[in-house]
């Protein structure tokens, strides 16, 4: 198992390298000069050249890339062109926020989604089932900005029971993440509900469920103890895939709720051609992506004793 984990982490290396290369390549090919963007238009050619030299932007593409990789290997992601801060520091600053957000969103999406899914599978064909299926479709079609704003209005402005935005400063303060978490997790929740429902329907047809019922176990025990763990296996697989889109979703959510997270950081950086930040963030995201998938694999092994990685 340990070796498997190490192996999966090692897999990160080519993926990370690939991503850094891809990012680097794409950003370099994109029209638009970062120096102009940094300095604005008022600036004299003299200053422009100074900056260009300082940033090494006058060097050929390949040596810039090598330099970049070299620096990464030394733990140096460079400095933001715009904020002039070290990318590593910026990242470390923002990771907790995004982590909290995705954590709350995922927790919410998974628990609520799974619960809804289980209930509608158990009551297949009932009005409740129809309702949740409809709800699931709604979940897919509701734009998250709309949801976010409505939630803000209702819970923050009208009832004033939850903060409208922000992260509440240092540390994890749950109340600040409830609305954003819900907004971000809503579509996922719908998806998990759908997945759990079909997974559960599949599982409920299995022989061991029949065995469990024949043993006289009560319905909740049958469904949750015997059914759920099995039904979660396909759900888990999907969770890894879903993570990438969840990460994409944080951008809008963070924007709407003024959460200073990775998403905000990335979108700011991309629009201002802040190369070091964009590269740092994508690299980090790739790492997270691989780690999350690793987590999913481990979870898989926990859920399904038939799978062992050695």
């Amino acid at each position, binding site marked *: 198992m340990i070796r498997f984990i190490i192996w999966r982490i090692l897999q990160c290396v080519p993926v990370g390298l690939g991503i850094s290369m891809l990012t680097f390549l794409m950003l370099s090919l994109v029209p638009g000069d970062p120096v102009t963007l940094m300095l604005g238009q008022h600036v004299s050619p003299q200053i422009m050249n100074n900056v260009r030299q300082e940033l090494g932007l006058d060097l050929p593409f390949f040596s810039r890339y090598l330099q970049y990789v070299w620096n990464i290997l030394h733990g140096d992601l460079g400095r933001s062109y715009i904020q002039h801060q070290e990318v590593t520091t910026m990242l470390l600053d923002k990771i907790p926020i995004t982590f909290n957000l995705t954590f709350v969103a995922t927790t919410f999406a998974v628990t609520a989604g799974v619960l809804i899914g289980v209930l509608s599978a158990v009551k297949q064909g009932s009005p409740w089932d129809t309702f949740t299926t409809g709800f699931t479709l709604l979940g897919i079609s509701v734009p998250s900005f709309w949801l976010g704003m409505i939630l803000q209005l209702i819970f923050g402005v009208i009832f004033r029971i939850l903060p409208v935005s922000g992260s509440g400063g240092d540390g994890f303060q749950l109340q600040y993440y409830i609305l954003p978490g819900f907004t971000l997790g809503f579509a996922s929740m719908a998806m998990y509900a759908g997945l759990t429902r079909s997974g559960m329907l599949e599982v409920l047809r299995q*022989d061991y469920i029949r065995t469990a019922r*024949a*043993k006289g*176990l009560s319905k909740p025990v049958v469904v949750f*103890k*015997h059914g759920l763990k*099995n039904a979660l296996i396909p759900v888990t697989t999907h969770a890894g895939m879903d993570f990438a889109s969840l990460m994409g979703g944080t951008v809008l959510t963070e924007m709407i709720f003024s959460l200073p997270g990775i998403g905000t950081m990335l979108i700011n950086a991309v629009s201002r051609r802040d190369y070091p930040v964009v590269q740092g963030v994508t690299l980090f995201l790739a790492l997270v992506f691989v780690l999350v998938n690793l987590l999913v694999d481990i979870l898989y092994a926990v859920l399904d*004793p038939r799978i062992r990685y050695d």
Partner: protein
Amino acid sequence: MGRDLLIHVKDLRTYFYTDVGVVKAVDGVNLEIGIGETLGIVGESGSGKSITAMSMMRLIPQPPGRIEGGEVLFYGKDLLKLSEKEMMKIRGNEIAMIFQDPMTSLNPVLTVGEQMIETIVLHQKVSRSMAKRRAIEMLERVGIPEAKGRVNNYPHLFSGGMRQRVMIAMALSCNPKLLIADEPTTALDVTIQAQILDLMNNLQQELGTAIMLITHNLGVIAELCQKVLVMYAGNTVEYTDVNTLFAKPMHPYTYGMLESSPKLELRKQRLDPIEGHPPDPYRLPQGCNFAQRCRRIMPVCEREKPTLLEIEPGHFVSCFLYERVKI
């Protein structure tokens, strides 16, 4: 009938209502099992054997299934009229059940021990450690080596034969009065099958549990059962004791079935199969369900359904051939 009846099923009918139509999976089944007795049920795939058993346990998936009628008298009380809660006390406790495929009948994500313990705790109201001891004891009894260690294993670490032993141990752990075994050996190899049948035989003798054994293998019936019920397309076609059945099968289907299986010791001889295949359960014929395949079909067979009649003492057949004799 002078013996003590454990369970008496009268005119059981279970239908499935699907988008495509109604399946009369079980359409009038009668059976009796005495205390400590073994009843075998044979029949082709899809003839309703499993559904009969599941209906008795009230485990039919609802919807689409529904028990449309009949009585299941267990010690004289109708199981079909019990509340779900009362029924839960009977399942696994008074009536236990094991299924055909040992590979899929155990929950892959729970340890074998856990699956046994939960039943024992539920029905015997004992502590978990007591239950565990009992589980180990049962596993030893069904011949699992190193039972102490293996209770903590997951099912996938067991071979097919071992899993079926576990299933039996689990079913018998609460000393049920009746064990319903739905094709317990079909999925197993011949040599393993022999082991399991042997085990069941021994345990029955020790514990005195009545067994309802579902199979489509006549050899298994001959080996274990005292009484046999032959089913075809949801109906009982023949019901008698095992010797009579093999010596003097009366229903053309039973007869055909006996003829069509290869016999080991006979000189090579062409098999005599029943032609055609079972009717589509969605479109059962108007008359006798077996009519299309029957060698001795009569005009009446295509018009009317025969009824199950006691042709000879203790020998029930549902066929117009014999109704006429009686008349």
